[in-house]
């Protein structure tokens, strides 16, 4: 899948009385590495959860390429090219590294018949209606039977598809620096490797939009630097738009082309790293107004 443009219009997420996101609007052009920063509790991960269908946004619109995608189920979003990693690593701990990546390539492995994904439709509501309609259930049942027959009979087409998936999974593992660890259980990998395995698994879905939630959390400076190099390489080699949440400013400033700053669920700034660093509202959000005044006196 080629890199996809993301447009967010007036996105809001309300939990009972708590507003986690309010009226967030932004556009990320295809192929950009975009940073998402903000103090703890600013709504960064909530934003990711909305993009991946973990939460259903309470207001606003999400557009991926030319398709409206808010409110779609998680697996459909994944099939449309949205993939992610997690702040607290969530690997399939008792599966091997290779198997983790193979789960990522799930939608690309042929399993007996052609997959019918009924979401490639311009109208958003119609898509959801179709998903729950009886017609779809009927088709899903037939598809399921075909898939079962394919798995049990294992015809050459299915076998080849599986073989190709394994080859490509090995390639992805090698690309993130995990060659040779294919058969290690995910939970037995060292921390840094687990982070990289999460990236590999996300890449296996062939994302047009890759969401990285604190990819360098808990890493030392050398490991962080390696991750920065990896992120750049991914964008170029795998042709994907990347949004990353990050706390380490060195990483954000080093790798992101543009940055969006969230505070209390609202967007307070957007621009190049240099612009954002100078933005008074950003300094205020991070360090408080006193610091801003003190800093202002110091420099001017």
């Amino acid at each position: 899948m080629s890199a996809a443009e993301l447009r967010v219009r007036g996105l809001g997420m309300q939990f009972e009385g708590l507003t986690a996101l309010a009226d967030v609007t932004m556009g990320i052009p295809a192929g950009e590495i975009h940073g998402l920063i903000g103090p703890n509790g600013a709504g960064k991960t909530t934003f990711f959860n909305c993009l991946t269908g973990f939460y259903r946004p309470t207001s606003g619109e999400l557009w991926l390429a030319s398709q409206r995608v808010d409110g779609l189920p998680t697996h459909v979003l994944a099939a449309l090219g949205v993939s992610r990693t997690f702040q607290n690593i969530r690997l399939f701990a008792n599966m091997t590294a290779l198997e983790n990546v193979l789960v990522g390539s799930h939608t690309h492995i042929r399993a007996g018949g052609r997959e019918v994904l009924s979401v490639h439709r311009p109208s958003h509501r119609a898509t959801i209606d179709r998903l729950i309609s009886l017609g779809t259930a009927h088709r899903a049942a037939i598809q399921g039977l075909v898939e079962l027959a394919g798995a049990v009979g294992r015809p050459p087409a299915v076998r080849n598809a599986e073989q190709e998936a394994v080859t490509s999974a090995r390639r992805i593992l090698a690309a993130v620096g995990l060659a040779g660890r294919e058969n290690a259980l995910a939970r037995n990998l060292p921390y840094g490797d687990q982070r990289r395995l999460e990236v590999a698994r996300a890449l296996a879905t062939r994302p047009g939009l890759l969401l990285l939630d604190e990819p360098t959390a808990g890493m030392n400076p050398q490991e962080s630097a390696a991750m920065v190099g990896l992120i750049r390489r991914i964008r170029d080699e795998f042709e994907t738009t990347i949004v990353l949440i990050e706390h380490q400013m060195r990483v954000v400033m080093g790798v992101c082309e543009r940055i969006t700053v969230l505070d209390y669920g609202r967007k307070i700034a957007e621009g190049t790293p240099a612009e954002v660093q100078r933005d008074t509202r950003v300094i205020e959000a991070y360090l408080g107004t006193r610091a801003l005044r003190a800093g202002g006196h110091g420099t001017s």
Partner: protein
Amino acid sequence: MPSLAAARIRERMGAPIGKIPGVWRWPLFVGLSATIPFLLSDVWIQMLVFVGLFIVLGLGLNVVVGFAGLLDLGYVAFFAAGAYSLGIMSSPGSPFDLSMNFWLVLPLGVVIAALFGILLGLPVLPLRGDYLAIVTLGFGEIIRLFLVNREDVTAGSQGLSAIARPEIGGFEIESFTHWYYFVLAAAVVVGFVASRLRDSRIGRAWEAIREDEDVAAAMGVNTVKYKLMAFAIGAAIGGLGGVIYASFIGFISPAGFSLQVSIDVLAIVIIGGMGSTPGVILGALVLVGIPRILLFRETADFLSKLEWMREVLNGLIRGMDAFVPGSIGRLPPAGEWGAELADDTRFIIFGALLVIIMVVRPEGLMPSRRRQLEFAIEEPAALPATGAGG
């Protein structure tokens, strides 16, 4: 030269199972199983038919519990769906009196059970863990009560008799030996299907759901579809077991479809080692075989020869009485053990055995390769690239 060949053969014979190449293990096992009726008497064969039946059921539940990680305590419902499909459609005593042929009902029973699986699956889709277990438990009870109360459909508690038997080209399956081969064939088919599914993208999707459902969805796995698939396939296999059971026994009534069946099958899966096919086989041998062996006359005769052991144990008890007077009674004479065994004692022996197994081998008797790794205390420094897949 000949001595070398002989040495080689001896080496082969003496080789542990691990040395036999993966491809040959199952054909070898099935081949050896096929020779059993020539070696054992009918009581043993009858026992093994039950074991085989429970292997089929265990393999089915293993798909749901072992592969997809969905704890199902109402598995008996699908067993009953299969058995009653055959009962209602073939028994002359059924309220419908269709007297249908076994082979016609077999696929119908499997499909009906699969539909029941989906019927159970739909409402429990959002449930996880303990909640799922409770709802499935209730589902099993609903089916049992339905069997008891809807006499117009199921003939109620009086049951259905003279259920059809399979016939293969004019040859009727009737003796225990016939049934043994029939069940063996069914187990082989089910085992093959289950292992193919496990090694496909379906099996991987199930495993991912078991590990972390949300993340599986984020990777593009349609969790609704695959959970329903697991329930449907598990149920279909349960239904197959039910059809075979009803035909073998020839008579079914609601009493045979209690919660106990669900628990037995689940225990087979857990004791054997979740997700493991050899585990299910061994689990069924232990859980279904041992209680029946304890019932055999031979066993009672054998135990009655252990009079001296009773003396020793009674001596010990007498010693304990010195400290805590009258705390425990004496063991009865060994001659009465046979009768005792047929009663409650066998459940005590059996229960103790299960406790011991779970304490000594919490991962199950023959865990799947992955489970072995999971339970390994030491972290393997570097896993060697696995050569031939098992």
